[in-house]
């Protein structure tokens, strides 16, 4: 691939039609095309509007608690014996994860577009909670679609959403998980396209969602880049983040893309192991195809049917991935690796005991990979890990692994 793509990356991706190389685009039914163009127009208009930006910045500061700090994980660094480890603390955000950076942005956009009803899909429930939170604050009607399996697994988040005034609709079709929730949210949107705004939770969906969600999440990387320069006087040598749809990873990576000295590593869920077929790692073990409005790497069979995925963390349990990650993989700018359920669970306990930080199981995948990487690097190098969320929501899952039931 020609070098120019990286030197000039910010100017080129996505193109006018929302393509990142062969990936991305707008693959939706005709009924939604009007709404997608309307959204793109509104986003273009407000993206550079100082009044909109100021309102968002104020919310991110006063409501979410930004900037989130970077934390030098001193104990863990010593224990691993290699690169210095820094954690970007998105787990300290209001609602407990990076998801709210995006829902604040999209909800403010929805309000400006005159939409009165918000819909969202959710897997583990973090994006659903973050959406219900902003809808409550803005006084908008909110409906969250969630796979029936996930509703059963994440009872606490379901209750949080209900407390916040959202209606949670269990989705019974297909595999009854995140991908089916997305299908159902798209069906709702087709039906109520006039008054409804669909807040997609990750960098997937038709253009402009992958670019828009990336821009809203890029606050993570912008802050972190400056914080690393202030703290260490230089850029980190490697960034590590977990990848489900890929919004926390792209949020961290994006501002560093043209800094070629910085390695970018996305960590997918290997589940029970790639060789078992029970995983959620489309970039590492999938093939390109079209799903949910964009072309990207997918977990699918040879006939183009989407197959079931598995991960210990519901937030990674998705057969696709944001199209920009697909492109970053193909041009070699980012590297994508995998970590199994077991390795992630070990890292979960390790960070909790060593640093007093209980991470989300999604995040634990990034931690597990970093713990392998750090010892191969020298003490004057540094790794920045995105702690995308806190582990409170995972108490049930982790306890069950230890044979406990609340």
């Amino acid at each position: 691939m020609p070098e120019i793509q990286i030197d000039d990356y910010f100017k080129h991706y996505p193109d006018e039609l929302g393509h990142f190389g062969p990936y991305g685009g707008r693959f939706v039914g005709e009924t939604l095309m009007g709404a997608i163009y309307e959204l793109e127009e509104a986003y273009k208009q407000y993206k550079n509007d100082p009044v909109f930006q100021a309102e968002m910045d104020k919310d991110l500061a006063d409501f979410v608690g930004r900037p989130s700090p970077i934390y030098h994980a001193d104990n863990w660094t010593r224990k691993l014996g290699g690169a210095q480890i820094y954690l970007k603390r998105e787990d300290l955000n209001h609602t407990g994860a990076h998801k709210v950076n995006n829902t604040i942005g999209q909800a403010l956009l929805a309000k400006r577009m005159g939409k009165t009803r918000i819909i969202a899909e959710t897997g583990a429930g973090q994006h659903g909670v973050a959406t219900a939170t902003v809808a409550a604050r803005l006084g908008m009607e909110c409906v969250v679609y969630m796979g029936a399996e996930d509703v059963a697994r994440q009872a606490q988040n379901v209750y949080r959403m209900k407390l916040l005034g959202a209606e949670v609709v269990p989705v019974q079709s297909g595999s009854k998980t995140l991908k089916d929730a997305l299908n159902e949210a798209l069906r709702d949107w087709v039906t109520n396209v006039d008054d409804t705004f669909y807040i997609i939770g990750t960098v997937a969906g038709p253009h402009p969602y992958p670019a828009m969600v990336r821009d809203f999440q890029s606050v993570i990387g912008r802050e972190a880049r400056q914080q690393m320069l202030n703290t260490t006087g230089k850029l980190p040598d490697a960034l590590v983040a977990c990848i489900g749809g890929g919004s926390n990873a792209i949020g961290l990576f994006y501002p560093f893309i043209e800094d070629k000295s910085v390695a970018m590593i996305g960590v997918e869920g290997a589940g029970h192991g790639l060789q078992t077929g029970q995983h959620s790692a489309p970039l590492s073990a999938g093939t390109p195809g079209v799903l949910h409005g964009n072309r990207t790497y997918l977990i699918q069979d040879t006939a183009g049917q989407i197959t079931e995925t598995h991960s210990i963390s519901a937030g990674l349990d998705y057969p696709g991935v944001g199209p920009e990650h697909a492109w970053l993989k193909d041009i070699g700018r980012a590297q994508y690796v995998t970590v199994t359920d077991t390795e992630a669970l070990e890292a979960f306990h390790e960070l909790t005991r060593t640093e007093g930080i209980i991470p989300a199981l999604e995040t634990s995948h990034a931690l597990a990979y970093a713990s392998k990487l750090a010892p191969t690097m020298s003490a004057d190098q540094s790794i920045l890990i995105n702690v995308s969320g806190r582990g409170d929501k995972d108490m049930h899952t982790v306890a069950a692994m230890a044979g406990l039931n609340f």
Partner: protein
Amino acid sequence: MSRIKECFKNLQADGQTALIPYVTAGDPEPWVTVPLLHALVEAGADIIELGVPFSDPMSDGPVIQKACERALKNDVTLNSILDMVKQFREKNTETPIVLMGYANPLEAMGYENFARKAKAVGVDGVLTVDMPPEESEEFLQLMNSHDIDTIFLVAPTTSAERMQKIAQHAKGFIYYVSIKGVTGAAALEINEVTAKLEEIRKYTSLPLGVGFGIRDGKSAAAVAQVADAVVVGSTLVRCIEEHANRPQDLPAAVASLLAEMRHAINARDLASVSA
């Protein structure tokens, strides 16, 4: 002349409206599909839309979603569907067949490979629900070079500008989605449909089909008054679902439902000719 074009030409000469049933290939069992297609033609189908099942049919309501699930349980693939068309063509070389589905199974086969195989077995057109003209350049080129008609949807939300663009790329006929929603969701509003069809006719001379909200003879006849083709899907698929446990009775049951619609449309066509 393409089979679809010829079909509409003949119908228009007789003052008739085309009736286009939709069924999902391989639902509820693969062996049912070919006899079912013959029974549909027998009952008055002019063109057949054969659904290619997809694991994530995001534009479809629960009825067609379940049909996809039933078909996929039997490992129906695009390849096996092309075999069904081939079998159908052994006895029927006249009725046009349009494959309707989502982009991913076509991507998996490869557009060129698909175009070549589809043409060889006698597929006449393809309607890819989630592939708007913006994303179709390569696809259109390959379908055109293999003489497969590319059918596009127009929706109540489609702007005049987009209608023009769609009209440039569409071949065979244009399919107007009569409601904002998924397949089988609601009843259509005939006045709105009429107005929209008039608007579309400003940009195209292709025949216009209407679907997504037609449930019975009455709504079929009302649409026949203003459209060139009536598409019926979820109503037939619901009948298939009801007969899933006795598939041997299914072709006759679905055919008799379609025959009612044919009858209602013919009565209306006749009335408008004599009026």
